[in-house]
């Protein structure tokens, strides 16, 4: 049981981050905090992928002449890392669009608090 817990500690961390991110997005009143929640959510998924790629006792995915290329368990799977490079780019782009929206919202309503915003939108 303890071994299982320690062996999967990265995934518990991911779940914790996921919940913190979702909680921030749904229940925080400040729009910037919602955006930060979104970034935490996206980071949790990036960590999930990277953690799923790691193996105990494996090395970087460049062929080592001493190990050869016979046993795939000797190397870490590089594919999730490459996928996550794309996901990081997507996350940066999303954050950029969101920040641009926040600037417009602040210019129009002079507030980023959700309650005040709803008040002023009437």
């Amino acid at each position: 049981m303890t071994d299982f817990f320690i062996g999967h500690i990265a995934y518990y961390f991911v779940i914790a981050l996921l919940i913190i991110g979702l909680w921030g997005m749904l229940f925080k009143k400040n729009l910037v905090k919602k955006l930060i929640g979104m970034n935490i959510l996206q980071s949790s998924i990036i960590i999930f992928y990277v953690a799923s790629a790691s193996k105990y006792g494996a090395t970087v995915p460049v062929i080592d002449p001493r190990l050869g290329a016979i046993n795939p368990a000797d190397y870490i799977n590089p594919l999730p890392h490459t996928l996550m490079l794309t996901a990081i780019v997507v996350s940066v782009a999303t954050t950029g669009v969101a920040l641009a929206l926040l600037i417009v919202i602040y210019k129009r309503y002079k507030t980023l608090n959700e309650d005040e915003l709803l008040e002023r939108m009437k």
Partner: protein
Amino acid sequence: MIFEHFPILIPLPLLLGAMIAAPLGVWKRDLAYPIALFATGLSLFFTVSGLIFVLNTGTHHYHLGSWAPPIGIEYVVDALAAFVAVIVVGAGFLVMIYSHRSLQRELPNKEVPFHSVSLLFLAGLSGMVVTGDLFNLYVFLEISSLSAYALVAVGEKRAPVAAFRYLLLGTIGASFYLLGLGYLYVVTGSLNMLDTAKIIPLLPEHGLVLVALTLMIVGIGLKMAMFPLHLWLPDAYTYAPSAGSAYLAPIATKVSAYVLIRILFTVFEPAFVRDEFSFTTVLAWLSAVGIIWASVMAIAQKDLKRMLAYSSVSQIGYIGLGIGLANPLGFIGAVLHIMNHAVMKATLFLVSGNIFYRLGFTDIPKFDDKLRKMMPFTSVAFVVAALSMIGIPPTAGFFSKWYLVLGSIDAGNWIFVFVIALSSLLNIVYFFRIIEKMYISKSKTPSESTVEETKMREVPVSMLIPTLIFAVAVIVLGLLNAVIVDSVIRLAMPKGL
């Protein structure tokens, strides 16, 4: 021969067009529109010829950069993908013709970025349709979503707030999809849809696959505005500019519905999602609740665009219901409704754009017969689309509902038959009150409405023609439904349904 490459040539002109239109448009503003039209026209040529090609020779597999799957990215164009691609790019092309004058009125000086972003939007959607790779699908999904946020955000004063909410919920949806994909990748070790489909039945136990499927369905459901996850949709459609909502409403959610069909019936087997674990039953019941609830909400709305947005949620319910029935007739109904709803909703949103162009408002209580005298063609288009939404033959909307009813009877579920009938009645309530105002109720101030005001003042030709093409298509597609079902949709039927 270049034609073998048609799957990549569907999104590529749109992507390149977006990159060319923005800088050239900064240099000379009038260039952006012709470039955008040319790029979309080129893409439309390849989608239509691709559909003909696929119908004649069968499913086309295209390996990007000649890397064989599952290592390389594969584009798979089967009858279903080719069919949905024609709907997406075709509707996008017509809306693009329309958007020119509408943008000059609503968003002066912003046409160049708008055309560029709308090209990106279409590129993302058409890419989602042709790809056969699950991660590639995520990338195209984000391309289309990011441009959709921008299309909403340029609207009226409250639009950025609606767009921000859409962005948050859309990102949650995409993240859930990505997380589900991560689980699926961990279990199967493959990202290719067909390859994954081969591996899943061989797995000894299904725990992780179920988590993966649930997360992916929730993620796509958010993007598709499936009933309890539709909260972003009404605000986004209402506050977007007319051209923006005309882009979003007909095709954005339909493509997500297509992705749902792909995941449920291509990646997973119908036997798995229907018989072993009843995912489709849950989907069908949620959709049935959504159909009624959204129709009731639509009746309560005072703004035309907002009413149409709620009606969209209800129509998405029909598609969800058809997918959820998971039998051949339900599938035909769902796919046919993807097309029919795209055409009907495009007509209705173009009409609401026309009304806004001439009158400057879309409040239903302010409509009267002046509207019909001013814009007779637009009014006729509205009536045709409204009849189709209600489901009166021979308009297109009747036939997809007919197949859904047949599918429900086939599944032995009479409650769904009742739901479809009830929602048609609710549709009558919210469309006929507008038709009544347009055709029957007299102007409240007859003394002020001089001859000049009641004179015909239709919208410009470039806006009127797309509206009328869509309206004619509603009737033509209704008459041709047997041809479409027999020659396209039956070919697209997933195995084991």
